[in-house]
């Protein structure tokens, strides 16, 4: 009876097993029959899906797997780090499985650590370069441009949160100072592992946690193995446009824990000037009097229109000395020998009369040598900061301008300027007390500064008459001393006083040609004197580090001015105190949201220029009278509000800001136009002038890390009202300016396609209180950059730039630039064939408002050109 019952039960269990349950037991052994321990056994019904059950073999190599509601056939897999993987399909209950396994070590393929795109640590955001780098990025600047909140202007200057960065570090060392473009535009992104953004960076350790900075700093961290060996490149090439072209470039950098050295030498005539031959090149007042491009320049890259011969050399070295001290030596020399041609049609608007139009063609030949050298000693410790920096700069311009209007005129401009400056700063921190001393001493001299013009009666150069000639020389000596003392009250508040003393001696002389022999009083200026500003600025600061800070300061400044006109003996003096309260508040709601408020009153008081009351020629047909004989005073009441939201990990950056100011001035600009517009003069008139300015800006960008794409949108609106006098009549000038910019930068298909598209719409409008007709101009500019990488070594790239702008003469003009080329990268060599201006656009037309005038420009462009270069990276 019992046997029957057991047999019956066994039959039932067996039937149940066959109908819905799988139980598998087994024993795993190696080739020698030893138990295989720790093997993972997975049970699958469907091999393409997740295992339905799993277990691990025990110390005896045995295992048991059971699964309800499962029927044969099933699949078993065996996986272990010590045995070869095995898989078997089981059609029916096998009883106890005996599975031999072959000994084989599991080898896992190494995967290089994929650093996250961004990491946030307090006020530091660390960006992984690989996450931002596209295949077409040539320099680290190309990567920096993609970081949220960062913009880079045409000169290479880097801005973060709309403010210029205060330091550019390489491995924590600031070698290049303000000339960091040499590094950012030449360092390869392949050599850099991370870029750190130090937000609100206080570079002086002694002031850290006490004095906040609004400016950020960047730090480049080199990849492992890039230290202690020279890195850089050598490039050379040739090509043809309308002449034979050449281009050569060497960049070398050596970074070690105790020294950094950067040397660069380059030259080209292929349309890449190294130093912008800017309008107001130079620093001294005498040099700045003359615009170096007085007959206009297109608002496009100088590489489009300048026929150049450019050379540049720079050597820089930083030595890390003991005790957190560095010694930095910088030197550079540049030569620009550039020329360009253009025609202008200037429409001088006149109240109550038809506008006067003047046409002029100009060929400008600009030659500039610049020399600079600097030596900096810096000690940056937690309790002591010490800096002494000596710099020298020399500037030598030799420019010629050929003008074609009714006749032919040649204008020349020579100037030499030297500047020597020594800066000394120290901060001492003792417990809760902070002492600061700052001293700047500067000598600027313009010994040679001459403008002249001759007019040719015909194309024959033999017969000419002097139109004008004038020498303007300047000398200035400046000294600034400041010191500060502050005391920390408890943990959050600080009070202090800053004392400053600025003394400037200036001399400016202008002499019209021939007036030395036959002095004519109205053609000469000779004014010298001093301006001393002594200020005491008590302040109170409350600061919850990382959360909230507010600073109220009330500068009381005493101004002492005394200038003497040597020609007539007149003495101008002014001695009185001024008060200008300032409030600055920063609130950091959390790590992402920051609000800033600045409000106060600023005063700007004139200088020697106000007493230069005889006219000075600025071009052969323009004269300016800088001053009125009395001191210019400007009082500006302002409020700025900005907010920034940034989530670096999400790649989101939002910024909005607004500002409003009212400025009271005691002078009005006067501009008069001669008959037919053949002469223009500008001066100032003593009369109260109130102007208002309002500005609103926003910027938003979102980096989608998974798509390797950045979307950005920004906009600006500016509204300004002021007074001008034109031809004796007062005119209210109301101007407004709007821009809206959209940008998408992307690296798609595993980096095989890189695109950067942007579109800018701008509108400018001016009305003159009904006294002259209102004017408005629209323009749209689209730029698209595309790089395609069909293979890992080949890049095909193209740039398109379309400018569709309204002309003052009516209608719209479109300018289309197309550049394209290809690069082949073979290990350390890179061969590039690049074509510029492929549509061979030869003229560039655009219009601008210049105060009360509308100027239509029409410039000659560089022709289509091709350049073949070879670059060797080391």
């Amino acid at each position, binding site marked *: 009876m019992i046997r029957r019952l057991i047999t019956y039960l066994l039959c039932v269990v067996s039937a149940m097993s066959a109908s819905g349950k799988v139980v598998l037991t087994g024993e795993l052994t190696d080739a020698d029959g030893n138990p295989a321990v720790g093997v993972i056994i997975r049970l699958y019904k469907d091999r393409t899906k997740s295992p339905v059950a799993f277990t691990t073999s025990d110390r005896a190599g045995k295992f048991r797997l059971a699964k309800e509601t499962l029927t044969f056939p099933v699949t078993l897999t065996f996986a272990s780090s010590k045995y070869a993987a095995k898989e078997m399909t089981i059609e029916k209950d096998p009883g106890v499985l005996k599975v031999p396994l072959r000994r084989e070590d599991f080898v896992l393929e190494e995967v290089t650590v994929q650093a996250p795109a961004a990491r946030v640590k307090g006020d530091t955001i660390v960006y992984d370069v690989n996450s931002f780098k596209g295949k077409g990025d040539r320099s680290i600047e190309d990567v920096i441009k993609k970081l949220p909140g960062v913009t880079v202007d045409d000169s290479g200057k880097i801005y973060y949160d709309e403010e210029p960065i205060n330091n550019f570090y390489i491995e924590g060392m600031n070698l290049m100072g303000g000339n960091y473009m040499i590094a950012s535009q030449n360092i390869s992104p392949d050599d850099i592992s991370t870029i750190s953004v130090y937000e609100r960076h206080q570079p002086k350790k002694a002031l850290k946690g006490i004095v906040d900075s609004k400016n950020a700093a960047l730090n480049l961290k080199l990849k492992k193995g890039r230290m202690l060996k020279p890195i850089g490149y050598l490039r050379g090439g040739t090509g043809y446009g309308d002449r034979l072209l050449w281009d050569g470039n060497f960049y070398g950098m050596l970074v070690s824990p105790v020294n950094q050295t950067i040397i660069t030498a380059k030259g080209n005539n292929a349309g890449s000037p190294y130093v912008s031959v800017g309008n107001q090149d130079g620093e001294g007042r005498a040099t700045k009097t003359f615009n170096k491009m007085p007959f206009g320049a297109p608002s496009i890259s100088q590489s489009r229109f300048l026929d150049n011969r450019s050379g540049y050399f720079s050597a820089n070295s930083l030595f890390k000395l003991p005790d957190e001290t560095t010694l930095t030596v910088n030197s550079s020399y540049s030569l620009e020998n550039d020329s360009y041609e253009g025609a202008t049609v200037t429409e001088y608007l006149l109240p109550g009369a038809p506008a006067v139009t003047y046409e002029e063609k100009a060929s400008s030949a600009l030659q500039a040598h610049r020399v600079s050298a600097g030596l900096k000693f810096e000690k940056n410790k937690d309790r002591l900061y010490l800096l002494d920096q000596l710099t020298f700069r020399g500037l030598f311009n030799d420019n010629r301008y050929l003008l074609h209007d009714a006749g032919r005129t040649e204008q020349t401009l020579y100037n030499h300027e030297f500047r020597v400056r020594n800066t000394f700063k120290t901060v001492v921190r003792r417990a809760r007390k902070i002492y600061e001393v700052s001293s700047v001493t500067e000598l600027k001299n313009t010994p040679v500064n001459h403008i002249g013009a001759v007019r040719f009666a015909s194309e024959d150069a033999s017969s000419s008459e002097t139109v004008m000639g004038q020498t303007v020389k300047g000398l200035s000596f400046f000294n600034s001393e400041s010191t500060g003392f502050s005391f920390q009250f408890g943990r959050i508040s600080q009070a202090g006083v800053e004392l400053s003393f600025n003394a400037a001696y200036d001399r400016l002389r202008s002499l019209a040609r021939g007036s030395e022999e036959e002095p004519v009083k109205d053609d000469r200026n000779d004014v010298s004197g001093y301006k001393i500003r002594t200020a005491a600025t008590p302040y109170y600061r409350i600061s919850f580090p990382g959360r909230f800070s507010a600073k109220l300061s009330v500068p009381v400044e005493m101004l002492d001015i005394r200038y003497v006109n040597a020609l007539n003996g007149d003495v101008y003096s002014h001695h009185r105190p001024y008060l200008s309260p300032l409030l600055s508040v920063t609130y950091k709601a959390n790590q992402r949201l920051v609000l800033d408020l600045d409000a106060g009153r600023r005063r700007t008081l004139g200088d020697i220029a106000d007493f230069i009351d005889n006219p000075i020629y600025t071009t052969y047909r323009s004269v300016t009278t800088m001053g009125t004989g009395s001191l210019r005073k400007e009082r500006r009441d302002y409020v700025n509000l900005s907010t920034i939201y940034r989530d670096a*990990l999400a790649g989101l950056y939002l910024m909005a800001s607004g500002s409003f100011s009212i400025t009271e001035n005691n002078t009005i600009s006067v501009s008069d136009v001669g008959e037919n517009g053949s002469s223009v003069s500008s001066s100032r008139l003593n009369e109260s002038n109130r102007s208002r300015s309002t500005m609103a800006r926003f910027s938003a960008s979102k980096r989608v890390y998974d798509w390797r794409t950045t979307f950005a949108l920004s906009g600006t609106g500016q509204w300004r009202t002021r007074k001008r006098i034109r031809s004796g009549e007062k005119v209210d000038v109301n101007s407004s300016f709007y821009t809206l910019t959209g940008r998408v930068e992307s690296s798609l298909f595993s980096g095989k396609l890189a695109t950067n598209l942007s579109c800018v719409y701008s509108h400018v409008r001016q009305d003159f209180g009904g006294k002259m007709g209102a004017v408005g101009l629209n323009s749209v500019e689209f730029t698209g950059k595309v790089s395609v990488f069909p293979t890992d070594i080949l890049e095909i790239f193209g740039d398109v730039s379309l400018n569709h702008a309204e002309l003052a003469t009516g209608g719209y003009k479109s300018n289309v630039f197309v550049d394209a080329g290809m690069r082949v990268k073979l290990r350390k060599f890179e061969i590039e064939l690049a074509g510029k201006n492929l549509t061979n656009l030869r003229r560039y037309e655009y219009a601008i408002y210049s105060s009360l005038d509308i100027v239509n420009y029409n410039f000659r462009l560089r022709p289509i050109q091709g350049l073949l270069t070879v670059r060797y990276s080391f």
Partner: protein
Amino acid sequence: MNIHLKITAIILLVLCGLRAFAQQQQGDVQFEYRSFAEMYNVVDTAEMNIIYAHSMFDPVKKKKEIVYELLSLGKDHSLYRMLAGYKSDSVSNSKAGGKYWYFGEDYKLYRTYTNTYGSSRERILKSYSDSKLTFTGSMLGDTYQASEPLYDGMQWTMEEDAPRKILDHECRKARMKWRGREWTAWYSDIPYNDGPAKFGGLPGLILELTDSTGEHKIRAIGIKNDRYPFGLNNGNPFKTSRERYNKLLEGYISDVAGTLYQQGRVTGGLENERKKKPRRLFYCPIELE
């Protein structure tokens, strides 16, 4: 005196002088040179290493932190710790035959690693054959140790979601509720039933782990094949239970000054200071129960 003796005497004097100078440079700090084997109870040799990025969010401080952690896989054991710990071990192993250097450039390098990858002395040692997990952590200079069964209470449910690729390995999904949090794991075909922190018990190595609140996200970001010995510190830790250690840690994190005062490590003015507002450190525990 013989010329050779003179030279020998001069050399000895110079050497003594140098040694004295070196000691002076080191100041009053007594440096202890101990080899790796002396400091650690070596239990296994790492054959594979998985680097994890661990993102944590503290809901009280509303602050996010990312640290880098390393799982060293041996034949019968695994060790989970901060990547900085591994890096500093590498420094010590590569210098002076495995001696620890606590000053100079090596110490700076160690600080660089801890600053970069985060610092913590917590280590989790899993023993596969013993089915045992040993945890060590340190607080205010004391080391604590707690043991528990391997993968204690981890009841995973396999999910049938589409597989995902992580570090080029096909991964499957599994979920479980464990010690107060709901976890989702993506386990791979790598033949280790291990994972980050205390996690494991799946039929393949866990490469990604997230909790349902989003406070923890642990993801494998790299694989290294370095070989080196590993184990737990050879010191004399306080033996405790995981519950007790977690409670102690929570108390310390919530009120640092209070803990210091309570333990008699500081006296005086700090007591008044701490009465104003307890200073709380970043805290985002894996285990809530």
